[in-house]
């Protein structure tokens, strides 16, 4: 009996039928379903013990005390540290995404040597460190030949940088990126005082922020937000009133009890006009220059105020009445983007605290004593040169360093007139960038040395700007080994110093921080366990700064130009860090559309400029221009164009590169009358429809 065609078909049908009574199909489908969920691109955490490790994230300017969540030793999230007074469980939008940033594709994976325009070759650490020493050796002892720019406002690494430069005979080359700290410290000096000012927001019952974006990007913003939240309990009456007087409706003014739209070119006038209104309702003080101050303030009449700000004088009267009625009013002066304002703008705002008798009082303005140093050869932080001024000198040939050390800073992107600054960097023969990420400056450097992420290193933060009391934080690595081939920049600099025949007394940054903690009177283990050390502010009085204010120029009217108000949103990054990928979704459709950034202006300004919603425009200022779209927003001050910072990166990663434009290109640097400081907070631009 043979197997014919019909028999074969029957055999196959029987086989198929039999298969239905086996696990082949059913098990195969089940396994296939499970297989389909095994997507290789899903990050997988190791199985293991879950821990919350205290750490200090310095990705934001002030530093966030966090608890890094780990499983099996691998970090996967960062939450605020409830045990730390600076955090109280809160975390800023940058540090909230800090763990993702540790794995960022923009990280510098290992030492890089420039081999051509925009081309880099990976090298070993030994070669990189030898190259650094080799380049610095012939410049030793030649003042002005070595410079350093630090983007770290609070770390003791600055002492090492400063002491290193001093030891190499280049003490004058120590520069810091612009920020409120330098401006305010110089302002305090103009008021006859000394030290970094602090602001006791927690103890105040009326907080007037003139420009200072204190609830988002200014100062110790998380602590500020916690103070605001405590005074505004849900479902209960607020115990303090917060007023924001600034150029545009931002995250700070969005939650404040009152918003007063003041153009960035008129903050000084606003403060003095308010002083005038306060004096007219009886405010007085015992400062020796009160009479001069009163006379100066009297010049800021309601008419002058209205002309400069575009606001009605009733606003002043209302504010003066509220401030007079408050028991603990506090005025916080600053720039809407945390830099670029002059010392005189600070004096104008801070003088209100003196006028109201609020200096050294609970809920008032304080003065912090100079922090003890770990390295005696280091300069005081306030003695650092402003990097903007220094690079302007490099651009004009007044300064000619042959080597530049860039520490955690991005001057190629974040200095005013950025185009000029980038060109000026080209005048320096050897640039070494200690960078965690491949930013614009690292992309121009001759040697790029990868710095560890905050969770891979020791670091500290002394007196973040704005704190009312001396405050010290320190953190130690969460990971035993960095995820890339990084070395602590301070360790590298200390080793280089040794090879250059200079002993700074330490071998590692951890040792430096231990010495700093000891000098401060804090316990290192307690600090790295997540606690903060706090001291007491020093006493002392301030003058009203009338002599300095008398030199302030009267605001100029320019019908062709409008004021440019840079807006800072921490979620969009800082001057040192591009927008973290985790925060990209917080960018509104009215802020960025595709690759085009919006600038905002009110309807009257738009009409004056002849533009309308959605128009593409060109803004020209400083030595550059940017292109943007128009968004009409009544939350912007009169005669002002507001533009977000943090965009227009030419480096970083796929998430941020090439999106929007960089406002630093159109900020105009000018000299502040009377102080000689470089300022750019009151920049103006011309607008043309394209």
């Amino acid at each position: 009996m043979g197997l014919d065609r019909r028999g074969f078909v029957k055999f196959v049908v029987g086989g198929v039928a039999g298969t239905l009574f086996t696990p082949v199909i059913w098990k195969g489908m089940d396994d296939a379903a499970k297989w389909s969920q095994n997507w290789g691109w899903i990050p997988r955490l190791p199985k293991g013990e879950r821990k919350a490790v205290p750490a200090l994230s310095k990705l934001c300017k002030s530093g966030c005390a966090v608890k890094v969540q780990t499983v099996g030793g691998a970090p996967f999230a960062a939450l605020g540290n409830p045990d730390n007074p600076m955090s109280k469980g809160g975390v800023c939008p940058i540090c909230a995404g800090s763990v993702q940033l540790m794995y960022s594709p923009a990280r510098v994976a290992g030492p890089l040597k420039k081999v051509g325009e925009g081309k880099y070759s990976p090298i070993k650490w030994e070669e990189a460190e030898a190259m650094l020493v080799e380049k610095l050796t012939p410049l030793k002892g030649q003042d002005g030949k070595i410079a350093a720019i630090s983007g770290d406002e609070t770390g003791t690494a600055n002492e090492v940088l400063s002491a290193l430069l001093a030891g190499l005979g280049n003490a004058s080359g120590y520069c810091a990126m612009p920020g409120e700290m330098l401006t305010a410290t110089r302002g305090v000096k103009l008021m006859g005082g000394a030290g970094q000012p602090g602001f006791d927001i927690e103890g105040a019952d009326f907080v007037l922020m003139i420009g200072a974006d204190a609830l988002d990007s200014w100062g110790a913003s998380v602590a500020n937000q916690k103070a605001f939240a405590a005074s505004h309990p849900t479902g209960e009456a607020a115990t303090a009133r917060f007023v924001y007087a600034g150029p545009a409706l931002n995250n700070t003014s969005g939650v404040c009890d009152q918003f007063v739209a003041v153009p960035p070119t008129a903050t000084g006038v606003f403060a003095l006009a308010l002083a005038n209104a306060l004096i007219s309702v009886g405010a007085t003080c015992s400062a020796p220059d009160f009479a001069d101050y009163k006379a100066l303030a009297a010049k800021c009449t309601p008419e002058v105020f209205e002309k400069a700000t575009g606001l009605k004088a009733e606003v002043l009267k209302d504010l003066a009445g509220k401030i007079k009625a408050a028991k603990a009013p506090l005025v916080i002066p600053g720039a809407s983007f945390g830099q670029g304002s002059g010392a005189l703008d600070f004096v104008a705002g801070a003088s209100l605290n003196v006028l109201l008798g609020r200096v050294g009082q609970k809920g008032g303005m304080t003065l912090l004593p100079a922090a003890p140093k770990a390295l005696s050869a280091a300069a005081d932080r306030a003695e650092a040169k402003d990097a903007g001024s220094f690079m302007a000198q490099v651009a004009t040939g007044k300064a000619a360093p042959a080597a530049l050390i860039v520490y955690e800073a991005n001057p190629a992107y974040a200095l005013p007139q950025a185009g000029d600054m980038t060109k000026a960097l080209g005048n320096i023969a050897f640039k070494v960038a200690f960078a965690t990420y491949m930013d614009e400056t690292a992309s121009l450097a001759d040697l790029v040395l990868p710095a560890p992420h905050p969770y891979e290193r020791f670091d500290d933060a002394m007196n973040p700007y704005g704190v009312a009391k001396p405050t010290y934080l320190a953190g130690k690595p969460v990971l035993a080994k960095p995820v890339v081939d990084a070395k602590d920049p301070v360790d590298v600099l200390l080793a280089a110093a040794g090879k250059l025949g200079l002993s700074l007394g330490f071998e590692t940054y951890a040792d430096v921080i231990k010495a700093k903690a000891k000098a401060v009177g804090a316990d290192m283990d307690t600090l790295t366990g997540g606690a903060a050390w706090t001291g007491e502010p020093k006493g002392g009085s301030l003058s009203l700064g009338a002599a300095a204010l008398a030199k302030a120029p009267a605001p100029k009217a320019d019908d062709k130009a409008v004021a440019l108000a840079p807006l800072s949103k921490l979620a969009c990054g800082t001057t040192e860090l591009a927008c973290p990928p985790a925060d990209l979704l917080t960018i509104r459709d009215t802020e960025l559309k595709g690759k085009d950034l919006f600038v905002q202006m009110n309807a009257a300004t738009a009409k004056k400029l002849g533009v309308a919603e959605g128009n593409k425009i060109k803004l020209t200022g400083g030595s550059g221009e940017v292109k943007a779209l128009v968004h009409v927003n009544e939350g912007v001050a009169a005669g002002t164009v507001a533009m977000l910072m943090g965009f227009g990166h030419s480096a970083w990663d796929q998430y941020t590169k090439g999106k929007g434009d960089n406002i630093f290109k159109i900020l105009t640097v000018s000299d502040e009358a009377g102080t000689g400081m470089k300022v750019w907070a009151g920049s103006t631009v011309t607008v043309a429809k394209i």
Partner: protein
Amino acid sequence: MEEKKQCKGCWGALPFVIGFVAAVIAGWVLYPDLIYSKKTQPVNFSHKVHAEQGMVCADCHTFRDDGSYAGIPTNEKCNECHSDVVGTNPAEKVYVDKYGKTGKDVPWLIYQYQPDNVIFSHKAHESLECTSCHPDMAKNDVPPTYYQNKLSGYSKQTMRMWQCERCHAENGVSNACHVCHK
């Protein structure tokens, strides 16, 4: 004539029956061997030897302070007794030389490995005997062969959802999705 036709019909079903039986045999006997790869543990660990020393499961498989289950003990735990070779079993020497002294974690094959979307709490099941769900490892002298599904990647021995559901149902515990899937 009629008889012949009936007889032909009977023989005519034979290919179908042969195909059916062959498929059933292949599906139940050959298929399981085809879809699993066999693996052995990196260390020939004997639970029996340890049980005979008077040890119980919880001596090595502990709960952490937060209540989460530590699962497989770490080298640190094993090294409490085996920082050096103390017996004559060659498996112990393998552990000590290859893992204990080098600090490299033993890449144990986890029979009960579950996907990330399954949240199983040992703490919630603490009142049950270990052997309610796991084999009685105290009698096990040689680690069972690890059968890994070539397609899904999971172990043959891992607990299936229906097993969880049945036990929950039998004990009046909710079988709602969120009980195990967060």
